[in-house]
């Protein structure tokens, strides 16, 4: 299966040749596809005229980039210091048990990707999790199931 590269081209149109545009364009591609498809990496290398190895080096160095497809929904749990001392680990482990994944993994049905990050900047409200862009402060392992259920229920009518 080859992904549609027209969006990649539109993104690359905004950057000239050379290394300078590499990270910004990869960030935008990541945002659109939720990961960096191999074809996109090749396209970036061609259009910016930089060797593929450098594109790959950057794509694999930075945590914001994923080289594997990710789930429909992204769950991010903060494991920054403030969240750690308030039980962030308990939170991520509980989500992992409920969804049967580890941090960094995606559920088999490609519904959820579980991710750990170091600090989202809401440290005062730790532990914090983010589900598809919505922040949940003062979380607790016991509240996880409800949050997941609720968001999935909202999902159903929206889809039909």
């Amino acid at each position: 299966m080859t992904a549609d590269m027209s969006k990649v081209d539109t993104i690359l149109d905004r950057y000239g040749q050379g290394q300078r545009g590499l990270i910004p364009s990869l960030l935008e591609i990541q945002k659109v596809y939720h990961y960096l498809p191999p074809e996109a990496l090749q396209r970036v290398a061609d259009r910016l005229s930089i060797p593929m190895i450098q594109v790959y080096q950057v794509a694999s160095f930075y945590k914001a980039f994923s080289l594997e497809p990710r789930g429909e929904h992204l769950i991010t749990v903060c494991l920054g210091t403030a969240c750690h001392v308030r039980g962030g680990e308990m939170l991520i482990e509980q989500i992992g048990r409920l969804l049967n994944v580890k941090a960094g993994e995606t559920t088999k049905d490609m519904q959820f990707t579980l991710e750990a990050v170091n600090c989202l900047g809401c440290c005062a409200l730790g532990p914090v999790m983010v589900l598809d862009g919505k922040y949940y402060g003062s979380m607790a392992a016991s509240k996880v199931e409800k949050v997941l259920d609720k968001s999935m229920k909202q999902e159903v009518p929206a889809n039909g």
Partner: protein
Amino acid sequence: MAKARSVAALELEKRREEILGGQDPSRISIKVCGGTGCLALSSDEVAQAFERELRAQGVEGSVALKTTGCPGFCEQGPLVVVHPQRIFYTHVKPDDVAEIVSKTILQGEIIDRLLYKDPSSGEKIVYETEVPFYKEQKRILLKESGLIDPREIEDYLAAGGYKALARALFEMTPDEVIAEIKQSGLRGRGGAGFSTGVKWELCRQAKGETKYIICNADEGDPGAFQDRGLIEANPHSVLEGMIIGAYAIGAQQGFIYIRNEYPLAVELIRLAVQQARERGLLGEDILGSGASFDVEIQLGAGAFVCGEETALIASLEGRIGEPRTRPPYPAQSGLWGMPTNINNVKTWAWVPHIIHNGAGWFSQMGTEKSKGTTVFSVVGKIKNTGLVEVPMGISLRHLIEDIGGGATNGKKLKAVQTGGPSGGCIPESLWHLPVDYDSLREAGSIMGSGGLIVMDESTCMVDIARYFLNFTKFESCGKCTACREGVLRMYEILDYITRGYGQEGDIELLEELGKAVKASSLCGLGQTAPNPVPTTIRYFREEYEAHVKEKTCPAGVCKSLITFYIVPEKCPGCGLCARYCTEKSISGEKNKPYFIDEEKCIRCGICREVCKFDAVLVK
């Protein structure tokens, strides 16, 4: 050397007068916090509810509604403050809004239920200005946080914004600007505390036509959010500082390197840049002064090491964030080999204040060597978590116990961690120490960028050391062997200790390894990565020894060393814990004490979390 003000500068002043003239200080205005913290508590729904209610109750014309940045008291959010009296409502929900409009706005009545209750006196407090959390602070950088709308450049103008820029451009030479900053004693707020004026001077004097300046908004320290808070509340103050700095240094192009994890801050700083361009405050011939400067925004891609200046520069150039040796310093050879000056968000934000009020005004505040105020994010196991600004030199105890409100749930506070992964833990017995660059360093920690994480008796210090080493192990770029391998080994030893495999001599080995990593790493990451270990060993050796010798975790954190049990006398047999237990390790009969099967228990702790009777304990 004063030049005549240009037409554009005079027009800016005129506009400011107009805005101020059009303001009615007695007009009621409602300020809803829209910072990331309160947004996590759905403050956006509160703001929408106000919009609806003001219309429904027919007062949308006479009452102003403003979404502001973070006023700092995140713990009490969503926060709503009714001006001009500054009535302070906490934990406001959308359902409370109709009542606030009908009672407080229309009839001047105070709603008791939404007031802040001072935990020490038990008293309800009506006005923001009287809340102890605020009373004890000295807010200069954060003065407008919670007052102005970060999306409105005119709010910033009304608060005196861009006055300092005009002063610098028309009344001062670049050298005079640098002299003023130098004289003020301002030290960098990004961690190392280098003199800002000296750094600017080096860059100004460096040879080269093209020079760059950078704002470091990478804020990688987990548990710190001052830079985010400031950008989300007052983005123009940072921008104004950068424009003044560019004029002083002679740079035409600037970059703001900001974390990808801060979407709101990114949006707001982008908007601010665009507004500043539209008003002629950025771009060619700024305010008709002849000086030109523009700013580009680059997002970080999630690498802690990119907060380090040479790694940040590599990242801006589109490469992986590997630091390089210094010298040459960025001031000599930075971005694309050009002289480059890099400062933290808060350092830039100080500049307009110092230019406006003078070096003398700034240097009066703080201690002999640490001038001004400092912004801390005070988080962890205390009551009043949030963002505070205090003069340098106040004691840790004052900051933690009076402003921070002390411990939650009656637990005993034990230590405070400053400086993030590069810092150390300072025990409660040393909290008389003043907060400044030098005292914290003497205690084995560092000031860092202002993260302050408070820990109580239920925090395990060995686990904290393990946590930080895990962090730096993960974030090490891998260039230096000492950092890549040494930190990994230190982490492994700590991990073994927390799992009950600690051996005699481990503590000494950790100390030795720490010294080696420090001595042979190239950048600040490796040089400081071992720091959490020596301070925790120095002040909490008995906790290490308990893990190593007795295989116990006194704080009840390290899973391999603890067991959960239910106290029969306390358990009424509600069965809630059993319902939450994913491993089905809790059994019992309704209305009789329940029981945990130690074999099946994975020590996830959810039973203790949900128990309403404190019947689940750890030993």
